[in-house]
């Protein structure tokens, strides 16, 4: 027997009609999408793939006819028509590297568009790997992304009447009477408030305690840092029910910290600025469900073949709805581990874990690959290190670059090296270099871990 979900506060604009509601046109479009998502999430995997390829054929027909970069791609893949593309033959379609996009973005822009996709939107982004990117998209493609944002709020059982807070990359601190798009097109929402993601974490924690939101959305590392600050200072905000994190890999232990400190549920969203939402944490389990209604995701081994459940590989993504600048088999430079189907019953594929950017993936000489995650407590307890970065030089050699007032003693170096070896589960050769500063990546962010070890190409 199914149980009732929350009683949603639908927003009606037709005089006299309260229930069921008549939202404005934008809200009806949003609900029409949600209706479809509610059905499609339960489809068997084959049915979903069939529909994805139905959409992919339309995208490829458009891309090969109107986008210079893709003009000859069908031929390269040995195919004569878009309808011949299947999950198997699609593996022959050339993988798109970010650098191709950066070097000549115009070749990826459609010279002609079918009617109905709305305005053409130019997007400037730091890119998911910190490399600046100029991309184009359409209203129709953004609509799907917004519809997925609403899906995530519905999945996680948000009470739209409550207050929502956002820590945003763009925009100043501000208060709003509602949650903004997409929720406000559909629901009578509570208020929302936002502040800058770039403020210092103590200020952000103070802001949260003052604003008392019940839902919070921010970058994963920002939330982690605020939680750390909360633990350090003992300041705990009242009444946070749930947190959605996105943007970066979720630092280990963040979910547990949110639960223990704030008694809040934490939901992870895997997204990239070029394509938007890619996978959402299952409402009932820890795995992330690929948002197959929007993206076709492949997880590939180094030889280009598809990974089996349990294997990790490169994430290749196709945005099914961006006809302005189609991204077809786009290498996100992320690594993820594919999982078995979810026990929740949804047919959407599951990523067990996002391992990180290719540059953040550590290896050992046996070929084991894993996230070079070293954001652990020992750095500050062992030595007076101000900033540090671990660089993998070869599969067996690491270099610790650090900023400090003085050189580390041999004892301190030995203790840090021991911690690194335990964390990374390999007896690496580790060198220490004191530097004046740690360079930021192209996106202006500091990387804890960088690999410059030779990479096996596909």
């Amino acid at each position, binding site marked *: 027997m199914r149980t009732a*979900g929350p009683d949603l506060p639908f927003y009606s604009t037709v005089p006299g009609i309260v229930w069921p509601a008549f939202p404005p046109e934008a809200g009806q479009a949003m609900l029409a999408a949600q209706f479809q998502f509610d059905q499609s999430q339960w489809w068997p995997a084959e049915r979903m793939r069939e529909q994805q390829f139905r*959409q992919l054929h339309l995208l490829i027909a458009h891309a090969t006819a109107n986008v210079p970069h893709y003009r000859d791609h069908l031929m390269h893949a040995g195919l004569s028509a878009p309808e011949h593309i299947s999950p198997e033959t699609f593996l022959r379609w050339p993988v798109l590297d970010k650098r191709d996009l950066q070097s000549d973005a115009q070749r990826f822009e459609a010279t002609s568009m*079918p009617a109905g996709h709305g305005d053409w939107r130019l997007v400037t982004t730091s890119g998911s790997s910190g490399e600046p990117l100029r991309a184009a998209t359409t*209203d129709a493609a953004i609509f799907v992304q917004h519809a997925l944002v609403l899906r995530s709020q519905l999945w996680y059982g948000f009470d739209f009447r409550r207050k929502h807070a956002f820590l945003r990359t763009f925009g100043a601190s501000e208060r709003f009477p*509602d949650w903004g798009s997409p929720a406000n097109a559909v629901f009578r929402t509570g208020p929302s408030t936002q502040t800058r993601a770039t403020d210092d974490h103590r200020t952000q924690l103070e802001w949260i305690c003052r604003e008392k939101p019940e839902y919070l959305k921010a970058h994963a590392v920002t939330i982690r840092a605020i939680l750390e600050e909360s633990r350090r200072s003992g300041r705990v905000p009242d009444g946070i029910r749930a947190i959605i994190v996105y943007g970066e890999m979720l630092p280990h232990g963040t979910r547990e910290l949110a639960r223990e400190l704030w008694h809040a549920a934490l939901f992870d969203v895997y997204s990239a600025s070029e394509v938007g939402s890619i996978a959402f944490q299952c409402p009932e389990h820890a795995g992330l469900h690929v948002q197959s209604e929007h993206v076709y995701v492949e997880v590939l081994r180094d030889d280009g073949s598809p990974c089996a459940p349990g294997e990790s590989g490169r994430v290749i993504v196709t945005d099914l709805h961006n006809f302005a600048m189609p991204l077809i088999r786009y290498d996100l430079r992320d690594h993820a581990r594919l999982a078995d189907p979810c026990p929740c019953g949804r047919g959407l594929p599951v990523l067990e874990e996002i391992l990180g950017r290719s540059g953040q993936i550590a290896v050992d000489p046996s070929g084991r690959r894993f996230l070079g995650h070293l954001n652990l407590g020992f750095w500050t307890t062992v030595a007076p290190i101000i900033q540090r970065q671990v660089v993998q030089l070869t599969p067996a050699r690491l270099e610790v670059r650090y900023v400090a007032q003085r050189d580390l003693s041999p004892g301190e170096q030995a203790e840090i090296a021991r911690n690194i070896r335990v964390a990374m589960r390999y007896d690496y050769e580790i060198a220490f270099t004191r530097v004046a500063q740690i360079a930021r990546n192209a996106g202006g962010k500091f990387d804890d871990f960088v690999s410059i070890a030779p990479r096996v190409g596909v």
Partner: protein
Amino acid sequence: MKDHRPTSTAWSPTRSNKRQARTGVDPCGPDDQFHWCGPLQEGSDPSNCSYPPATVDNPHDRVAIPASSVAGIGFPAVPSARGQTMLALLFQLERSQWLAPQQILGHQFEQLRALIDHARAQVPYYRDHLRRAQIFTLAGISPASFARWPVLSRADVLGADEALLARNLPAAHGAFAWNTTTGSTGQPVRVATSALGALFQDALVLRSHFWYCLDLSLKFGAIRSGDHAPSAADWGSATRGSFDTGPAAFFGLSEDLGAQLDWLCRETPAYLLSRGHTLHSLIHESCASGRRPGGLKALLSFADRPPDDLRALAREVWDVPVFDTYSAGEFGALALQCPDHEHLHVQSENALLEILREDGSACAPGEVGRVVVTDLHNFAMPLIRYAIGDYAEAGEPCPCGRGLPVIRRIAGRSSNMAIDVNGRRFWPLLSPFMWIDTPITQRQFVQLTRARIEVRFVAPRDLTSAEEAIIRKGLLSTFRHPFEFSFVRVAEIARAPGAKFEEFISSLEGPQ
């Protein structure tokens, strides 16, 4: 604080693809820039979207794919404006059915207050009515106070004439539309509704398609009254704009039974919609003639209470399920059969349906009472607490988990009520099994006096005395009173065009 709700001014699909700068697609929100709703115009040309429409292999996968109106976008679909409206309603209906009964009632009263507010301001009948009643203030309408609202009879509706029509209708409700209903009294009632009211009725039809996992790509057939073309390219207004469907074929309810079966065998629809008794007669005719329609997947009965043996017969002879809809011309669908059980769920999102005892109090589960209906969305001619003349048995909450109230069965109309010499009044529960070994294909009981009931039947020959004796024994057990039964073989059991078939009618005069 700025309000960044969407305005009614929205983007149109026909305008050029203008380039707009944007600092980034932030999935976080709030975003006051972006409100897109796809095409707003009916009939936008999705000619580039030439990929064949999705088909459905297994209806239980629930994989009906809406039709898209934007070229290049097939999945998820961007339906036409009407399609979006329907799917937006369907999304709400999918959720509201699982709400707790008290939550549903709370929402109904929110909507009821809006309806009464309108009725008081715009409908002369209610304006006077409320002044006379002097018991209602808008804020004060609750289930308890609403129970004191006078019941509107069919005679009141006929007598009120235009006083029940709204002088003004909010523009967003669309134009007036008219329904005429005959009922069993033969006295037609004309009921106005609005385009919006009709839309809600269509949404319930669409809900029924989803509840019963109908494969929309297949052919639909209907035997019904009224003027209609013999065929259509799609299933009609409920699905139009939201789903691509297979074709539909129609045939007249008053046509000869043999001709109806010929039509059914010729058209071979996957789904057949008709009144329960017509479906019942068709199956008997199929048995008698040995002709069986091919490709039939389900029968959809509507309007009147289907014969009790219809399900068993449909399963046995045609191997198909029956899904029943209790509907009335004044309101459209009032209750749909539960997808998992044989009883009916009130469609509370569109109608506040009460089952009342003689003293006006609400029936408890298991009790039979008169059906009183309020259409929550008909602002053109508000029908508030309208007694439609039917009696129904209230049910316990459904084990399926839906919070929609349960009607265990439609007992019938007052004119379908029997009375014995002791004054006991009841709706006869006519067992289908007593007819199995007889040649009877159709029958009707007419109570002539408190002691005498005539059994009119259609059969290829007269009954033998042994058959009559068996039937009499069964009827005694059914009626729990030794009525004097007389058997009359007739060529056909006549009824007015479009009128419901009634298995039991009383010809006794006056209130019973």
